[in-house]
Each structure stands twice: as C-alpha cells, then as structure tokens.
C-alpha cells in the first residue's frame, strides 16, 4: 500500500468525502488508514478537518450519547494523521500541530502536543520541542508536555468479590 501511497491517499480522502456524516466508525477507520499510510498528500485535508468546528448535535434526546463525542474522536484521529506525517520530518505537519496545541478540546490539544513532541527524532530534539511548547502553552497545560502513558494495571479498579452467588428475587414472567 505504501508503494502507492499518494494514489491510496487520494482514494481515501475521496471516500471520506462521500461518507455520510453519521457513519462515525467508517469515517474514523478511513482516517486510521490514512494514518497508517502517512502520506504527505493527506496534510491539508487532515489539517483542515482537525481544526474544523464541531457540527450541531445530531443525536437528539439521548442522555448518554452525543455526536459531539464522535466528532471529537474523528478530529483526534485526524491529528494522529498529522503526527504520523510529522514523524517523517515534514515541517508543514509540525506547523499544523502547533496550531492545534491550544485547541479548546483537551483531547485534541493533548494529541497535537504529543504528536509534535514525538516528531523529535532524538532526546535533544524532543527537549527543544518541549521548550517550544512551553512558550506557547499556559502553565496549566504543562502537564500535557510528555510522551508518558498510563498503564491500566496502575489505575484504581473496583473491588470485586472473587466469587459470589447470584441471588435474584422471583419475578413474574411475561
């Protein structure tokens, strides 16, 4: 696929444009494939998508689910494409990431910050990039300037009984 990266990238972008807005998984999957291809030709498309406004809520009347959540996830995936292109030393991708490091959504700005940082190919370069980020970010976001991730084993879990018997009250059947 990589050998035909520009052509594949164009095809993926075209497919994305034809995909209905409420097909969130398909849109996300197309972007994931763009990330895997990591072709420079995707740059302007994903830069535009990642900074585009969240559309008005599409999921009406669900107290638990929101199209805004889905749209944020899609934009985060677009930022991951930017980061993948930046990791190949493409300066325009670096610049696009820096434009997103103060985005209102925490997930989008964290992904942009990490992508920019990770594109440094040596520890010295990463340290320099950390300084660039510190100059641009408010102190409250300094904690986001890291490539550390969380190990699920270190996260507090609820206590479960090792074994317990299910006891249900008798209930009338339909």
């Amino acid at each position: 696929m990589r050998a035909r990266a520009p052509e594949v990238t164009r095809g993926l972008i075209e497919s994305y444009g034809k995909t209905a807005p409420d097909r969130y998984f398909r849109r996300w999957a197309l972007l994931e494939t763009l990330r895997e291809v990591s072709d420079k030709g995707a740059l302007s498309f994903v830069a535009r998508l990642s900074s585009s406004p969240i559309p008005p809520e599409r999921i009406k009347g669900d107290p638990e689910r929101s199209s805004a959540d889905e749209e944020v996830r899609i934009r985060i995936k677009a930022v991951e494409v930017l980061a993948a292109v930046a990791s190949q030393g493409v300066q325009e991708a670096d610049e696009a990431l820096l434009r997103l490091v103060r985005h209102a959504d925490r997930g989008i700005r964290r992904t942009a910050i990490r992508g920019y940082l990770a594109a440094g190919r040596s520890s010295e370069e990463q340290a320099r990039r950390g300084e660039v980020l510190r100059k641009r970010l408010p102190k409250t976001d300094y904690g986001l300037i890291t490539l550390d991730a969380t190990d699920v084993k270190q996260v507090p879990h609820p206590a479960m009984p090792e074994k317990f018997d299910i006891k249900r009250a008798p209930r009338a059947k339909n």
Partner: protein
Amino acid sequence: MKRMLLFTMIGVLSLGAPLYAATCFYQPGNNNDSGDNFYGPSMCNQPFIDAVWEHFDFDKGDWDDGFGWDEACNVDQPLARTFNALYLLAYSAEDYATSTSDFSGNALRWAYPYSASNIDELDGRCGSGDKNTGARATTYRGPTVDDRTVLKWPFFYGEVVVQRAGTILHEARHAAGKSHNGGSGCPRGKSCDTNWAYQGANMYQVLYLWWFRVDGTRTTSAMKNWARSEAQNIIDRGFNTNPGYVIP
C-alpha cells in the same frame, strides 16, 4: 438495504381503538464496519444463545415480531446484534470466565458476569426507531417498577459491537444502583460522573474498553483501536474532574 420491520406497537383504549402504532425499520448499514459480520458466525450457536438467554432473562415477548426471536443469527436484526455484543463481552478474555459467579481477574474477564448478575432482564424496543434519535438504552430499577434494561434503535444500529458491549456493562452499573452524579459538569455536558473514585458507570465502561484494547482476543485490530478511542473519549469528556489517564 432498508427493510420493513414487522414490529408494530399497538395500544388499545377501553373503547377498542388503537392508542398508538409505530413501525420501525432495520438500519444495519455496513455490517462489516460494525463488526457484526465478524462476530455473527461465532455467536450463532445454540449453546451460547441458550446461555445468554438465561443469564440475561430474555423473554420471547420482548424480542419477537421482527426483533429476531425467530431469526437469532440474522445480524440485520436487533436480537442478533445484541447477541454479538454479549459474545464479545463474554469471550474477549483469553481465559474468559466460565461461570457468572466468577469475578476474578480484570474487567475483560468480570464484565460479563457482572452484567449478567446486575441486569435483571434485557428487552428490545424501537425507541425512536431512528439510530440517531433518543436513548440507546434505559435501565429501570426500583421497588415500584419492573427492573429491566431496555435496548433501543441507537444501541442496535448506532453503535459498533464493542461499543454495544461497553454500553451493556455501563447499564449494568446503573442496574446495580449507581447513577451518574456529575450533572452536566463534564466536557460533554451529560451523563457525567464527578470523578474516577466515584466508581460509576463511566469508570466501568472505560476499564472494560481499556482492557479490551490491551488484552482483547477473538477480535480485530480495528475493534481494539476503536475501543481505545472510545475509552479515551470518556476519560476526557465524561468526568467532572479529569482523571488524567492517557491510554497508549
């Protein structure tokens, strides 16, 4: 292809006239995207169906008339799509729990026993009849109501299989008596939990999806990546105080 669902809800007034009638239509979309075609062949076996039928107290009257009772392996229909989610919930750990009273191990392992133990029964309904409208699921619980979790169109057709599995565990936490306590104080502005320590439905859902990402088996890389994205989104947008976790 959109097909007409035969299910028709008809209430009858004392005079015998219809109170209301509603018809809903299947909205399966692309069953490869949703993962239903991947899980369908594994799910479609009688011993598994018999087991979940008992564990979640399914009733024919809640799943017939077009919901799939007579076509339990047809992944265009609500029942099979629910079975797919339960299959993923049950068998995604390499050493999956073989008893609903076994809560050992991580969330990937105890999610199914926990859900089976706390959800009194699973019912299928049209709801709005549109995958983008209305609640995906509602859990009823209390001394004066029939305890149950009702799954609706946005659950069947608006979520991929791993999302549905997470939703079932989320609802199981509600069925256990834990409501959301954060009002609209989180970034997404609804179904907020105050923090991780509250141990609410959002925490349970995140833990399941996170472990699925880390250790999930009998699945696809797309499902695992999507689970990561879903879990991170809840971490970032579903808590009034962000727990600060970053899923690798």
